[in-house]
């Protein structure tokens, strides 16, 4: 098994340089050092703002991106009848979900997106998925914000934290 290391290294070096060059001229190119999609949490002092918003008054802060919320804040929004959107797949949703949440699986987005036709862009929404090891809530939250939803929350603790806290759910036994 004679290996020509010059040829092996050439492939790696040529393709890496090609990648760097194309990335440099590509309008969709990315920076060399990744900037983390830092989830910004709403601080508790703005919880009252959330209530104002739900009641339909003018928001005193314009969201520049989807904002993350803690379990406590999620529960507070739930009690204000804010719409929860489950980003997991349909089977997981059927097994159990946050009470009154609607199902919009991020990975089957095209199949389920019609549900958004019934949700005005001014409606505050909370995206969630399984929990801390799941990225669907962030992906869906960002997508909803891009689509024009003005007040998007990401409940990163998700289904796991909600269940653990014993908050209202609907499951397949019901």
């Amino acid at each position: 098994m004679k290996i020509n290391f010059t040829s092996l290294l050439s492939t790696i070096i040529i393709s890496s340089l090609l990648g760097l060059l194309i990335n440099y001229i590509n309008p969709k190119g990315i920076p060399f050092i990744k900037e983390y999609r830092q989830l910004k949490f709403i601080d508790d002092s703005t919880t009252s703002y959330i209530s104002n918003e739900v009641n339909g008054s003018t928001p005193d802060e314009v969201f520049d991106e989807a904002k993350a919320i803690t379990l406590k804040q999620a529960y507070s929004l739930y009690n204000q009848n804010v719409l929860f959107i489950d980003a997991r797949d349909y089977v997981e949703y059927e097994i159990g979900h946050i009470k009154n949440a609607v199902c919009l699986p991020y990975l089957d987005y095209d199949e389920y997106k019609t549900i958004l036709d019934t949700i005005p862009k001014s409606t505050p929404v909370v995206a969630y998925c399984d929990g801390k090891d799941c990225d669907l809530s962030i992906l869906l939250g960002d997508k909803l914000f891009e689509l024009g939803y003005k007040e998007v929350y990401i409940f990163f603790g998700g289904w796991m934290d909600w269940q653990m806290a014993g908050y209202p759910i609907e499951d397949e036994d019901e």
Partner: protein
Amino acid sequence: MNNFLSNKYLLILLRVIVGFVFIYAGILKISDPAGFSDAINNYDLLPLSIVNIFAITLPWIEVVAGLFLLFGISVKENSLIISVLLIVFILAIVISLGRGLNIECGCFSTSSGTRVGIIKLLENIILLTFSFLLTKFNSVFLSISSDKNSS
């Protein structure tokens, strides 16, 4: 068994399969560099500072190695590169499964929705077997490379 495995028709079939899979996977990643960078980051295995370097260069290594394989240029070397990549992918999948991560695989396009799982692991193991056979036996049949003395 070795006679069967070193059959030139079998080897060129493996070359075409592995070559096409890597060209396809690489092109999809190249078309969405930001998505691929997020996909790598979700594995939580690399420091943030080098995630993008991988996201920029790795898909091109896949495409170039895949093309060389397809055309029979330095088959041993390029299949070795692909084998190393596959071993890295397999380790990443195993570690993620062990940690119970429910993340997108990022193997092909970043919006294909394929999650990290056992099937993905098996696909990679099969490709690794093919790629290893190419490194071991070489394949010069229908090759545009002039180096035909190492089979």
